[in-house]
């Protein structure tokens, strides 16, 4: 017993060491300790299981036996010496039977009570399962992208022939009114398929990293193109552009076109009026120091009741018996991405039956 030490203290100290030893030995993670020269002085049971080496085989050897490249080991040692530790570094270890094992390591420098470097403690975690899952996720993503692309492309391609032939048939002046009506119905369904495909495509682009990049976009040409495409798909509809600011740029992505098209199409397809009209107004507004652009899309359709005014923007929620319920929820997702706002109002206050007004507020780019 050393001077000044009490029996109870020594007993506690020994007991703690014993517990620590048991803990190291029974740990599920591989724990190793090396001295200042990199020679192994501790190698627990989990380390044995992980590497295939027994403690006797590796004690006194340097950890380089586990590394394929000496440079990797030198980089780790250098970081430990300079920063005191290496955290969550993914490396490949060589097992006794020559297999390459992906692991994550944590190495901490050990110092004595004087602060002198005495070695390093290493904790090694097998990440084979994690790697396999990561690989699976990547493969699934690649497959989904492949199927999406194939489906979107082919459906739109097939629609080209279907739509074109339908339009040619409709030119036939000998058709009865009933035959024309049926052909127009077919054409409408074909348009609905295209709209759905486009929306799902927008959604999948929105989920990707590149689809989430927001840049300044000139609003005027986007609105013009959206109006032209919607009129082409729904020639019976009148779209009136009430005010127009061709030079305004807003913070958005190329998906802005899909957003405006979605809002216009929504005003058209849910419009039972014999003379469907959609009015688009672009207005500059200021709130405090910030400038915004307000785009309102109004229609003379069936309107949106008060209880549905918020629900229509929720994803996967069908709020009427027609359609996928995707148009406005997709619009909301896009507007959120652009840092703007969107909401629904009555075109004529307190009278939803007179049609809906969708208000879209986008951040204006200061020129």
């Amino acid at each position, binding site marked *: 017993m050393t001077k000044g030490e009490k029996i109870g203290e020594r007993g506690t100290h020994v007991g703690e060491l014993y517990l620590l030893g048991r803990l190291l030995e029974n740990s599920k993670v591989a724990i190793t300790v090396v001295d200042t020269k990199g020679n192994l002085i501790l190698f627990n049971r989990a380390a044995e299981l992980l590497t295939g080496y027994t403690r006797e085989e590796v004690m006194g050897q340097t950890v380089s036996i586990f590394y394929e490249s000496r440079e990797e080991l030198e980089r780790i040692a250098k970081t430990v010496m300079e920063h005191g530790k290496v955290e969550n570094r993914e490396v490949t270890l060589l097992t006794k039977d020559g297999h390459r094992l992906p692991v994550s390591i944590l190495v901490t420098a050990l110092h004595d009570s004087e602060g002198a470097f005495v070695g390093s403690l290493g904790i090694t975690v097998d990440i084979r399962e994690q790697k396999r899952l990561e690989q699976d996720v990547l493969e699934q993503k690649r497959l989904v992208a492949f199927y999406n692309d194939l489906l979107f492309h082919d459906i739109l391609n097939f629609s*080209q022939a279907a739509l074109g*032939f339908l339009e040619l048939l409709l030119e036939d002046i000998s058709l009865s009114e009933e035959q024309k009506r049926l052909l127009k119905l077919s054409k409408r369904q074909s348009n609905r398929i295209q709209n759905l495909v486009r929306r799902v495509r927008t959604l999948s682009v929105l989920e990707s990293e590149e689809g989430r990049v927001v840049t300044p976009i000139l609003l005027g040409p986007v609105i013009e193109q959206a109006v032209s495409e919607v009129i082409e798909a729904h020639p019976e509809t009148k779209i009136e552009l009430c005010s127009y600011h061709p030079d305004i740029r807003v913070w958005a992505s*190329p998906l802005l076109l899909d957003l405006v098209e979605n809002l216009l199409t929504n005003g058209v397809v849910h419009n039972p009026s014999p003379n469907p009209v959609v009015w688009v107004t672009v207005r500059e507004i200021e709130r405090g120091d910030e400038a915004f652009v307000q785009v309102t899309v109004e229609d003379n359709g069936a309107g949106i009741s008060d209880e549905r005014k918020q629900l229509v923007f929720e994803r996967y929620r069908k709020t009427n018996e027609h359609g996928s319920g995707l148009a406005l929820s997709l619009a909301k997702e896009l507007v959120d991405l652009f840092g703007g706002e969107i909401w629904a109002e009555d075109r004529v206050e307190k009278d939803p039956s007179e049609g809906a007004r969708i208000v879209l507020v986008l951040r204006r780019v200061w020129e």
Partner: protein
Amino acid sequence: MRGRVLIVEDDPDVLGLYRLLLARREMEVWNAVRTGEEAVDLYRAKADPPDVVLLDHRLPGCTGLEAANRILDLHPAALFVLVTADESAISIARAMGIKWVHRKPVGNAKLVQSLMQALDEAESKAEGEAAEERTGVADEEGPGNE
């Protein structure tokens, strides 16, 4: 019959539609092929190229836009109307300076309008070239007449 259109489209139904539509609008189908390579070969082989190329993008072999680039190398005045279901091709086509770019499906009226505009441009280019040639001939002949 107005104008000469080369159709590059691998889907037989879409090709059938284009043939019928062009015939109804009295436009001449100069030729119809299903790959970009065949289109390039036609430009290489024939001295008198078509007025406009009605082009798809996703084709067997090289893409429509790759074919367009190779055709432009051979014939810089070539005009294209691109109709594609490939979203990524649209911005590339615009960056290449292709004026008539449509997403599939495009309605017949819009497609015909684009083809007409392209044919008008081809016609005015041809007239311009002819006038230049005449001026060139006059210039060359000029000194001899003096």
